[in-house]
């Protein structure tokens, strides 16, 4: 159902008339404030820099891009662009900007700001982790190597019109324009911040930053000039940082906190879900995430596809899901079920240790082999690694566990020195709801380079070519394109560079006084909550 919703939605967005209708929640009340807690401090609110799930939704509420998503869904809709046209060859995008949109500093947003923002995010000096997403814009390469200071492909036609030319077709381009990295920022505020725009953000979003006490709290105040009439409902959103998840839960039970941003601590999960009153305040939803084991195809004996298949059949995924209190669904392919392009009728490798042992023997390894399994050292990942270790031992594979800090696992994965890695804590979560986002960096040849995120070092030229062909189509939701992507992942599974283990579910807990549709609390792009649309009932 979700899949259907998402793909039909994308088609609708393409054919969308100029004026998107906003239907507001009739029960919503304006006013009041909520308190959201986090363990980690907020590093930055600069949309060109911020790239963790904590500041992602905060930045979304402070800034807007040309494109946006319908709240609670993966459906694209125009944002600061009122409408857009795509040329027949799919190489030129013309965006018509909304009139009268003001930055938090009172100045009106124009096409020059759009161009400035795209130049800024792609300039190497900005050090944006998202620069690469704009690789399809003409002139990107000259920006990346420092030979240009402005993107040749982005032209200001008039103050309300921007034309973006691509150097190659990119079916995902509208999704890219909905990323935080594509947010429109005012030049004068960036320059006034003197390199510290991340602490003094100025955007066009539903909220503006009104107070930031480093290490303690941030207060977002309602932008009364927000261009979406009637929004946001809340007067303030207060983010308190440095709060242990377990303390946040105690404070929620005490009525001091509305949303514990880090979720329900695993140790308390069963207690909360076992109490009907508390469980009623928990909203469950899917997320575009897959947890997997990478099998390094360059390290013997994992370079043998039969060995990789045997390992796929040795892992008891149901038991691993039980280990995390059932907070996930078993996976059999790289894409999560709610992603367009997911192959519904694929059964995956069945759990069959006896058959797996036989396959190992056929591959010339009747006594198994010794290997290493890398894992990030925070709960529950070492426990999951132990379960994997036991499953492997059952077919004669002796894996020693390397439980180390996240940065060290990423380093070993990128360098290609880790035979096997359990992805937990670093697992892939989609940047945007398109199947291509699960390929390039983690299963494609580009990610297999030294330091890349493709920890299997899997690189198949034929599969890469098919992926490129799929992304060269103009309509991102075209059924042929989805079929090609489905085909890409099925071919990947034949080569078995991964053991897909599970897709984590999201559980957002909220205070009883909070209102708004359930899907706002498990919004696929605003984690944990879409702040622009939720409200308090009293």
């Amino acid at each position: 159902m979700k899949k259907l919703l998402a793909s039909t939605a994308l088609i609708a967005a393409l054919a969308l008339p100029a004026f998107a209708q906003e239907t507001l929640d009739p029960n919503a009340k304006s006013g009041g404030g909520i308190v959201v807690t986090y363990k980690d401090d907020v590093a930055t609110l600069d949309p060109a820099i911020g790239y963790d799930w904590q500041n992602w939704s905060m930045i979304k509420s402070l800034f807007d891009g040309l494109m946006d998503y319908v709240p609670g869904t993966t459906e694209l809709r125009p944002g600061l662009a009122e409408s857009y046209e795509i040329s027949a060859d799919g190489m030129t995008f013309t965006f018509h900007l909304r009139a009268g949109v003001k930055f938090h500093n009172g100045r009106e947003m124009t096409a020059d700001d759009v161009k400035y923002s795209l130049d800024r995010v792609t300039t190497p000096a900005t050090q944006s982790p998202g620069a690469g997403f704009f690789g399809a814009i003409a002139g990107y390469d000259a920006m990346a190597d420092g030979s240009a200071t402005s993107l040749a492909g982005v032209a200001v036609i008039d103050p309300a019109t921007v034309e973006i030319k691509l150097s190659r077709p990119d079916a995902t381009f509208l999704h890219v324009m909905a990323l935080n990295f594509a947010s429109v920022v005012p030049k004068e505020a960036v320059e006034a911040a003197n390199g510290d725009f991340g602490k003094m953000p100025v955007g066009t979003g539903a909220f503006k930053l009104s107070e930031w006490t480093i290490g303690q709290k941030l207060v977002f105040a309602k932008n009364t000039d927000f261009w979406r009439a009637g929004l946001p409902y809340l007067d303030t959103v207060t983010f308190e940082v440095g709060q242990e998840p377990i303390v946040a839960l105690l404070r929620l039970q005490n009525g001091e906190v509305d949303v514990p941003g880090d979720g329900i601590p695993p140790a308390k999960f069963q207690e909360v879900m076992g109490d009907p009153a508390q469980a009623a305040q928990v909203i469950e939803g899917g997320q575009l995430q897959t947890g997997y084991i990478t099998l390094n195809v360059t390290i013997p004996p994992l370079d043998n596809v039969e060995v990789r298949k045997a390992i796929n059949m040795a892992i008891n995924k149901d038991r691993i899901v039980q280990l995390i209190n059932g907070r996930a669904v078993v996976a059999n392919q790289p894409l999560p079920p709610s992603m367009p392009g997911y192959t519904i009728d694929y059964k995956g490798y069945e759990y069959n240790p006896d058959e797996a042992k036989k396959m190992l023997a056929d591959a010339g390894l009747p006594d198994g082999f010794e290997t290493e399994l890398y894992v990030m050292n925070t709960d529950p990942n070492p426990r999951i690694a132990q379960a994997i270790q036991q499953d492997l031992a059952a077919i004669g594979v002796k894996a020693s566990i390397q439980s180390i800090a996240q940065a060290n696992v990423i380093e070993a994965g990128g360098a290609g020195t880790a035979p096997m890695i359990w992805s937990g804590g670093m697992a892939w979560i989609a940047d945007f709801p398109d199947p291509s986002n699960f390929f390039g960096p983690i299963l494609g040849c580009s990610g297999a380079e030294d330091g890349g995120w493709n920890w299997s070092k899997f690189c198949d030229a034929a599969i890469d070519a098919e992926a490129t062909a799929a992304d060269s189509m103009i309509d991102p939701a075209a059924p042929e394109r989805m079929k090609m992507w489905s085909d890409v992942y099925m071919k990947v599974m034949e080569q078995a560079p991964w053991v897909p283990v599970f897709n984590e579910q999201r559980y957002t807990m909220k205070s009883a006084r909070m209102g708004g549709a359930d899907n706002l609390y498990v919004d696929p792009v605003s984690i944990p909550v879409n702040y622009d649309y939720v409200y308090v009932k009293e």
Partner: protein
Amino acid sequence: MAALVLRRLIQVGLILLGVSFITFFLLYVLPADPVRQIAGRSATPQTVANIREQLGLDQPFVVQYGRYLFGLLQGDMGRSYLQKTDVATLIMARLPASLLLMAAGIAAELVIGLTMGVIAALWRGRAVDSGLMMTSFVTVSAPQFVVALLLLYIFAVKLGWFPIGGYGTPAHLVLPALTLGILGSGWYARIMRSSMIEVLRADFIRTARAKGLARSRVILRHALPNAILPVIAMIGIDIGIFMGGIVVVEGVFGWPGIGQLAWQAIQRVDIPIIMGVTLVSACAIVLGNLLADLMVPLIDPRIRIR
């Protein structure tokens, strides 16, 4: 005295130089790449190379360390790789909270620890003594996380006497300070007990008793000031222990100190912050020790430091 302070300050400088070199070197050889943390998972090789060059992380170790030291001598602690904010700003925003918690924690340790030590010494060999020494053993061995959560649960959640974590009012300070006080009091109780027992055996105490002074007066005016000297030295060492232990307590109580800043920076290999926090902590430890050394002659005029 002035010459002593000057000499010790030069020592402080040398210690900090050594600490900065060792920390910088360890971060340099660490098998984790800060550029990967900045560039993120979707970065192209070109982006990664650009960032590495801009931060000078493609330079040899000597050049990198030299640059850092040169900046440091001019009072520049660098900019956070991930937050893109001056490290000095980030540390200064959090240092007062850590120092306040440290001062309150040490005060709580002294009150609890010295009381326990004195009582145990006066009733040496009795049930009170062994009971207190057992307690002190338990408190120094107890995990900080558990004690912190237990106090929070009982006194904030159940009884509602104090706020559930946070910062700002004296009420916020009580539970974290008490946690640190309980955990560290065992050391002081043991030191105080043995020092007190020794002093109580001394001739001048017997003389004082013999000339008919009240027992309370003998203990408070004669024995206590003489027994407290080793405790003062202990405070200097304790500051170092505090810097290590404050991370957990700050975490549980949501106390906005430098412990939390350091913890997050280590997770993300944000080298300028790790260096900054390490140097500030080292500074606090050596200055704390210096202060303790200077206090001793004030309390006991017989001791002169040369």
